[in-house]
């Protein structure tokens, strides 16, 4: 298992665990980012943060701070 933010652009992975406190991750789950969801890291923003991922056939952007706490395999 490694953090989502350690993927390289174009790399695909599956969410294993989300280490964001339960009371803060509600919206993330509702957007379909759940354990077991497969995703692709599309790119990092030009200034290095945030990251863009593709999941369930749409594009979503998260800060690295959160991407560090999403573990994938």
């Amino acid at each position, binding site marked *: 298992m490694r953090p989502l933010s350690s993927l390289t652009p174009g790399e695909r992975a599956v969410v294993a665990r989300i280490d964001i406190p339960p009371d803060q991750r509600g919206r*993330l789950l509702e957007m*379909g980012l*759940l354990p077991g969801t497969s995703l692709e890291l599309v790119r990092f923003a030009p200034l290095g*943060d945030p990251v*863009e991922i593709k999941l369930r056939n*749409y594009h979503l*952007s998260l*800060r690295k701070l959160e991407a560090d706490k999403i573990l994938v395999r």
Partner: protein
Amino acid sequence: MKTFTVVLTGNPNCGKTTLFNALTGLRARVGNYAGVTVERKEGALTGAEALHPVTVLDLPGTYSLSPQSPDEQIARDILFQRLPEVPAPDLVVVVADASNLQRNLYFATQVIELGHPTLLVLNMIDVAREQGHEIDTEALSKALGVPVIPMVASEGEGLDALRQTLRTLARTPGTRHVIPREFNELPEAFGREAQALETALESHFPHRSRLAAAEALLLLSDERALATDKTSAEGTAAGGRYPQSLIDQVQAARQRLETAGVDWRSAAIEARYARLFAIEQHVTRETAPPGELLSDRIDRVVTHRVWGLLLFVAVMGLMFQSIFWLAKYPMDGIEAAVDALAQWVGSSMPPGDLNDLITRGAIAGVGSVVIFLPQICLLFLFIGLLEDTGYMSRAAFLMDRLMSRVGLHGKSFIPMLSSFACAIPGIMATRTIETRADRLATILVAPLMSCSARLPVYTVLIAACIPQRNGWPGLTLLMMYLLGIAGALGMAWIFKKTLLRGEPPMLILELPPYKRPMLGAVLRQMWDRSKLFLRRAGTVILGINILLWFLATYPRSSELDEQFSQRRAQWKHSVSTPPTAAETEAGLQLDHEEAGEKLRQSFAGRLGRAIEPVLKPLGFDWKIGIGIVTSFAAREVFVSTLSVVYNVGGDGENTASLAEVMKSERRSDGRAMYTPLTGVTLMVFYVFAMQCVSTVAVVRRETNSWKWPLFQTVYMTSLAWILAFLTYQTGTRLGF
């Protein structure tokens, strides 16, 4: 005759607004929901039968029924029938993006579960097809238990079918019975608790028993569903707060679930997505392997390390330049027209106080509102285009890193940039920021960016005080702009650390596919938003302008009138025909002197003198004090007031002659008044001081309270005084 109410709902970026415009033909009424700055869009269905009118209400885009922003809260409250101003919907039309089926169905199935008569519009089937997904709408309809209408709203495909359905339903209201349906295979323990809670809700709120099952599910799994806050309508009669017994019951149920090892926050979400995944597999046929989409190709350039940033700078530059320079022409035109109108009215009415009130109070007041229109329209045009094409979220994506340094969101960038032209459109543009704390922080600091109204103040002070050589004038101007930026970012950082602290909100930003903007809709939206400004802020601005006119005009002194009419009679008596240049000049001088003397005698003049002790430590005298008092309406008034105070003539056009007079102005001890130090101190004061009633009015409107605009005025004025004090005192110590 009862109107058939259709509520249109769906995720952001699902094409809902395009559909709404197509259904109502761009003749919607736009306003706000009571007490919040959430846009309310409502229109009559075009082509509806005269006897069976249909009203369509467009709800704000929503990702789920557990709201994260005021927009989403309004949408939830309407769907839960908690908003007294909105009747129970006769039909809910959920719009879903076919190319993003699972996440769109997440919300759609939540809505279907509410038990309203519901219809699903499957929009953008062309995009889905292009990506190789063929969706069987029959099968989807069967799986969801509601009719499904396939559509390409931007091309008008499927519109007739929808319109026909709406017409039929409007003719026969109440004939559609909905079989409640759930899309969760919940863990058994969770299902049991939900069932018990449903029964309790039914007995507590019999008038909305239809919603009980869905509400039970939300209460159990949404942390914040129990909390009632001021912005929601839950406290009102129609909603009713949850009774304590119910709150206790929910908390006990959550406790039991935790003991049983069920995560009550995520169980329902996971169960729903599992079901949706299965539905999608069942109804979709893959026709082609997904290739790279056009939108993805565009994004490779737009978010590129080099090209993306260059493009961003170019877009922002174009936008800023248009607000700054392009708006100048219509603004000059409006100013000339207002002046001409005032002149005409002034000369066709008998002179006197009423004449003065109408020309210099009312007409000038209206002018000071309308003058903002070109900038506001242009900014909203740009924002509309950026939003409609999908570039807005890329701009936030690009800028988030910079803005997050001071604790703000990427979306704060555009409001801050716009504030260079004018804080009013900038503050109105903060509506795109969902998080309340971020939005407030942006509103609080936006007026610190040097707006175009400060430019005349800087210009005249630089001309009067700064050595006109070695590039000093330009450098000084640049320093003032930089000071404003530093002040805004610094204060944003401080506010986010103190007053507006709280959970650092996560950035969860969707990057929707690019699309061609619909110009008609963008223009329409621009006009609607501008009208809101005129209606809501305009009245306050007009009122305060009239008040300031009163302060600058009264009390009248008959002694003074007498004195000047005598002098004027003398001048008339001695003047030769035709008058020589010197005599004309003397006559004008007399007018200027009279205006100056009257202003000095007025309440505003007295106020200027009264605040002199406060201004003395900054090196200002009472004449500057009058300028500061009158320019509370708008900063540029400072220039015209000084012109009157120094007897130069009040039109303020003549910066050069005003600067000359200011240069020769002496203090009581004979030193020059307008030294470089005085100039810089005064400019520092104007960088930070609020000095703009229009901004106050707009902030009051946008925050829906007097608390924030008052706080903002106090903090900015204090900051202005302290920094001007430090500048002046340090400067004097250093011997300037």
